[in-house]
């Protein structure tokens, strides 16, 4: 007795294909539309964000919570750090509660677009690409970006081109991705946070790391990683708060607070507390803001 089966025929595959095509083409129209309208949401004259935040009595702040000493969680699982204290100061001065929401560098800006949070205070660097998507306040911190190598690595690395042919670890969505991509013949590896990236550098699964000198040194010390910062001074990045475009009133308020905190020494105090005695960058900030 032989069996005879008639398997399902795949000739109706064109139905899902048409559907997929329809979805893609409609997404293209809305894709172009969305990026245009995100910029023009300032119909109300640019104060919806500030009034909404004031009315709600709470400012939702996004930060990574994995980048000490900017933001991290301590043993008691409390959110701590320079950015945290800074955000709390902002909240106090405009009499609003602060709610911290954890995000990553590649979700910060989409999160602003989809209204998951109101402002990003994450040691986020001002870059031209980001400025096309969001607005920044005055910078409240400057931080040096440098190259880290495994401490056993004795190569002479003083600048980006010296990394040619190496594998480079960076944080996904950070401003360092573009820097790493500019190096000829280099393999790019992106990680969710600095600890994972530097652990791989310590293990030898990647042979260099580009990132904040401060965060890198701090993480290396805390986790006992055998990684060392080079003397490369790639860029002095300006860290600022970011929020949706077209919110003039909110920006004015945030700018005012930054200047206030520089003038009354709060920034100096927080910098010294979290970064060390020589880390008061108030003068650099004043120069950048152009007081």
């Amino acid at each position: 007795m032989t069996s005879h089966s008639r398997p399902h025929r795949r000739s109706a595959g064109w139905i899902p294909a048409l559907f997929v095509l329809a979805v893609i083409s409609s997404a293209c129209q809305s894709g172009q539309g969305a990026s245009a309208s995100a910029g023009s949401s300032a119909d109300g004259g640019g104060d919806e964000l500030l009034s909404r935040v004031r009315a709600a009595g709470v400012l939702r702040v996004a930060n990574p919570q994995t980048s000490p000493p900017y933001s991290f969680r301590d043993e008691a699982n409390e959110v701590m750090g320079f950015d945290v204290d800074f955000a709390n100061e902002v909240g106090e001065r405009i009499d609003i509660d602060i709610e911290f929401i954890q995000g990553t560098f590649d979700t910060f800006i989409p999160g602003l677009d989809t209204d998951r949070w109101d402002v990003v205070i994450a040691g986020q660097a001002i870059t031209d690409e980001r400025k096309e998507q969001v607005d920044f306040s005055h910078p409240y911190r400057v931080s040096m970006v440098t190259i880290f190598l495994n401490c056993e690595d004795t190569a002479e690395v003083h600048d980006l081109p010296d990394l040619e042919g190496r594998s480079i670890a960076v944080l996904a969505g950070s401003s360092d991705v573009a820097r790493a991509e500019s190096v000829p013949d280099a393999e790019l590896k992106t990680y969710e946070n600095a600890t994972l990236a530097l652990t791989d550098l310590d293990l030898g699964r990647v042979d260099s790391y580009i990132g904040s000198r401060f965060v890198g040194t701090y993480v290396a010390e805390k986790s006992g990683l055998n990684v060392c910062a080079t003397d490369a001074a790639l860029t002095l990045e300006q860290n600022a708060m970011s929020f949706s475009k077209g919110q003039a009133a909110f920006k004015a308020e945030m700018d005012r607070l930054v200047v206030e905190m520089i003038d009354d020494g709060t920034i100096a105090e927080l910098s010294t507390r979290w970064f060390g005695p020589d880390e008061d960058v108030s003068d650099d900030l004043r120069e950048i803001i152009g007081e």
Partner: protein
Amino acid sequence: MWELFQRAAPTLVEALGVTVFLGVTAFTIGSTIGLAVALIRTSKLRLIKYVAVSYVSIFLGTPMLVQILLIYFGLPQLGIAIDPIPSGILALSLNVGAYQSENFRAGLLGVDVGQREAAYSVGMSYWQAMRRIIFPQALRIALPPIGTRFIALMKDTSLVSVITVTELTRVAERVGSATFRYLEMYLIVAAIYWILNFVLALGQATLERRLARPY
């Protein structure tokens, strides 16, 4: 969206190669493991059977993402540091092996007991019976779930993006965050996965038809 696709095309092609490589390699290794485990479980070797059952239980009972993270980020804390692609292949193979062992086991159990009895009564050894009588029939029964598992594996390779392997999903994330055009980028990559799996599904249908031929 077309110009975004053109811009990302070289990276996408390379990443597609990595995805297919991961899928095919993990499937080959995993199926071999799966077949071995299935044979062990349908045999009378008591002690090894327990090991096999535990292996299947662990890998069916834990999320694949956790398995991948454990192998890549967890093992180094025990002193075993494995590179990204081997880690991915290892995790995927072990996972596929567990699922395939169940598929093969179902196939083997689905063959009429009478077939094996008849084979033995004609004087065949265990391996002769397996190879000539049992296995061809078991394969026909097990083919649909096996084929489906292969297609599912192709999608599961996207999880390996979290351990820094530059496959399709990782490229979507990277280009998306560089250009801020996430929707288009993820749609492009989803379409590529879909086309890949559509081709595999066609292959599976052809294979099923071939095996269904009366003999």
